[in-house]
């Protein structure tokens, strides 16, 4: 559908994807009415620092915001904050707002993000039990980030481990409970899990894997302990829950837009309704380098889909679809990930994890599909290019640190 005549565009959700869509629309020359509706009270901000530098108090709040308030005025963008969208009327092309009122649209971008999974156990709503998703979560957590306090983290994914690193560095007594037999089990290989587990233990974090949480115990309204299924009691002044996220797809689903663990979109970020687009955590997209579809929970994905949606609405050529990439900062370790490592049949480790600088390459039928690079930006950046080209790589060359990554990449690109 040609939407180049659109003069009313509404963006629901003020996260990374929504913010990018606004920017790309204006940068792309769209001069019509543009409205952002967001359920949070804050202007769009970066989430990654919330479990890293900002949580640690090393980054001023002002630096979280993508743009200052005056940018939205200068760009003539109407910003409606603290206001969830209630429903979408696709026949009359209106978005109903929770506090009353409605917005007409010619094109709509749903960038509603995701929400933390709720702990399904008793005590989950006690005072002192927190998610880590929004700026407001960090505001609640931070007053308790005091040396000597006991923090229990449920879930050893990236959020849990990043928070553990920050809390340890601030002198808290930190225990991480993970149900799986290893940390980061859902997202990476055993070699990386072992490296991060060893690192956190060396930093003084207590990590308990294969640990089933029974419930959270409290005194009055306040959490006091995590109780494992085997009865073990772990004292807690504060509990952080990081057990994954769920896509905020209900708004689309209730409007009859096709969803399946995420709002289904095509390569242009277009949903089953040609006037409606979805971008970021809430969308399930074609993963063009992997011949399947899925959700990506990442900055790269949010930015890219924001750009894709804007380009499709403005009738511009489709921007390049990058290989998925991610990063995580823990202590002085920068983990950079390119590609999706599920379905690998071979791992090549380049360098020695003991040096805290190494990379794990994931191959499938000899083709590079992903890399986890620890303090190894060259391995990360080279792999990004090689993955997109579907490069075949010889395992013995990849693992040979006497050959520079630059030379390996050049040889593979020339082949």
């Amino acid at each position, binding site marked *: 559908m040609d939407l180049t005549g659109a003069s009313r565009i509404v963006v629901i959700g003020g996260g990374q994807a929504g913010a990018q869509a606004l920017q790309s629309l204006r940068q792309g020359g769209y001069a019509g009415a543009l409205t952002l509706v967001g359920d949070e009270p804050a202007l769009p901000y970066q989430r990654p620092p919330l479990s890293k530098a900002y949580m640690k108090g090393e980054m001023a709040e002002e630096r979280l915001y993508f743009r*200052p308030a005056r940018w939205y005025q200068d760009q003539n963008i109407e910003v409606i904050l603290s206001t969830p969208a209630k429903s979408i009327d696709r026949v009359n092309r209106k978005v109903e707002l929770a506090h009353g009122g409605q917005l007409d649209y010619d094109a709509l971008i749903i960038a509603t993000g995701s929400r933390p999974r709720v702990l399904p156990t008793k005590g989950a709503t006690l005072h002192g039990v927190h998610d880590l998703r929004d700026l407001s979560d960090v505001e609640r957590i931070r007053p308790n980030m005091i040396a000597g306090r006991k923090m229990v983290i449920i879930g050893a994914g990236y959020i849990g481990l990043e928070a553990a690193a920050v809390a340890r560095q601030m002198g808290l007594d930190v225990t991480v409970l993970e149900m799986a037999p290893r940390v980061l089990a859902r997202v990476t290989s055993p070699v990386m899990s072992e490296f991060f587990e060893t690192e956190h233990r060396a930093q003084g974090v207590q990590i308990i894997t294969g640990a089933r949480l029974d419930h959270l115990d409290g005194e009055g309204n306040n959490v006091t302990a995590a109780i494992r299924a085997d009865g073990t009691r772990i004292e807690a002044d504060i509990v952080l829950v990081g057990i994954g996220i769920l896509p905020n797809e209900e708004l689309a689903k209730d409007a009859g837009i096709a969803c399946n663990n995420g709002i289904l979109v095509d390569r242009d970020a277009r949903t089953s309704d040609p006037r409606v687009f979805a971008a970021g955590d809430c969308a399930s997209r074609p993963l063009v380098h992997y011949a399947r579809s899925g959700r990506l929970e990442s900055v790269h994905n949010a930015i890219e889909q924001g750009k894709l949606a804007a380009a499709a609405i403005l009738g511009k050529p489709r921007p390049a679809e990058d290989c998925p990439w991610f990063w995580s900062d823990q202590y002085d370790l920068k983990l950079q990930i390119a590609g999706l490592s599920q379905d690998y049949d071979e791992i090549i480790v380049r360098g020695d994890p003991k040096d805290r600088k190494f990379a794990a390459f994931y191959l499938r039928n000899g083709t590079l599909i992903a890399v986890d690079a620890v303090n190894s930006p060259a391995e990360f950046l080279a792999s990004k290019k090689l993955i997109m080209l579907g490069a075949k790589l010889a395992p013995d060359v990849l693992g040979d640190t006497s050959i520079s990554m630059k030379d390996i990449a050049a040889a593979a690109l020339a082949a």
Partner: protein
Amino acid sequence: MTKIIYVDNGGTERVVEAANGESVMEAAVKNSIPGIDADCGGACACATCHVYVDASFMDKVGEQQEMEKSMLDFAENVQPNSRLSCQITICDALDGLKVTTPESQH
């Protein structure tokens, strides 16, 4: 405030009054300077805020850390005066700093 001049690939100059303490990348993004993507928001994770630093300021913009050096190794069209603008912190000594953005960040 410190004056930073951004020159785009076509030679157009844009002048920004930036606050000390923020990075050359942040000042660019806040002022809608085209040509600096800064996808990772300044975490030195993506190499999409590549700029060329004017020769007269090369000794004032600070040393490159190992991470930045390796990242730049894989950016497009790298020159001796290439830097990641998220790693340059604005201070009085940088008043009048001129940086040029490359043709593409990807």
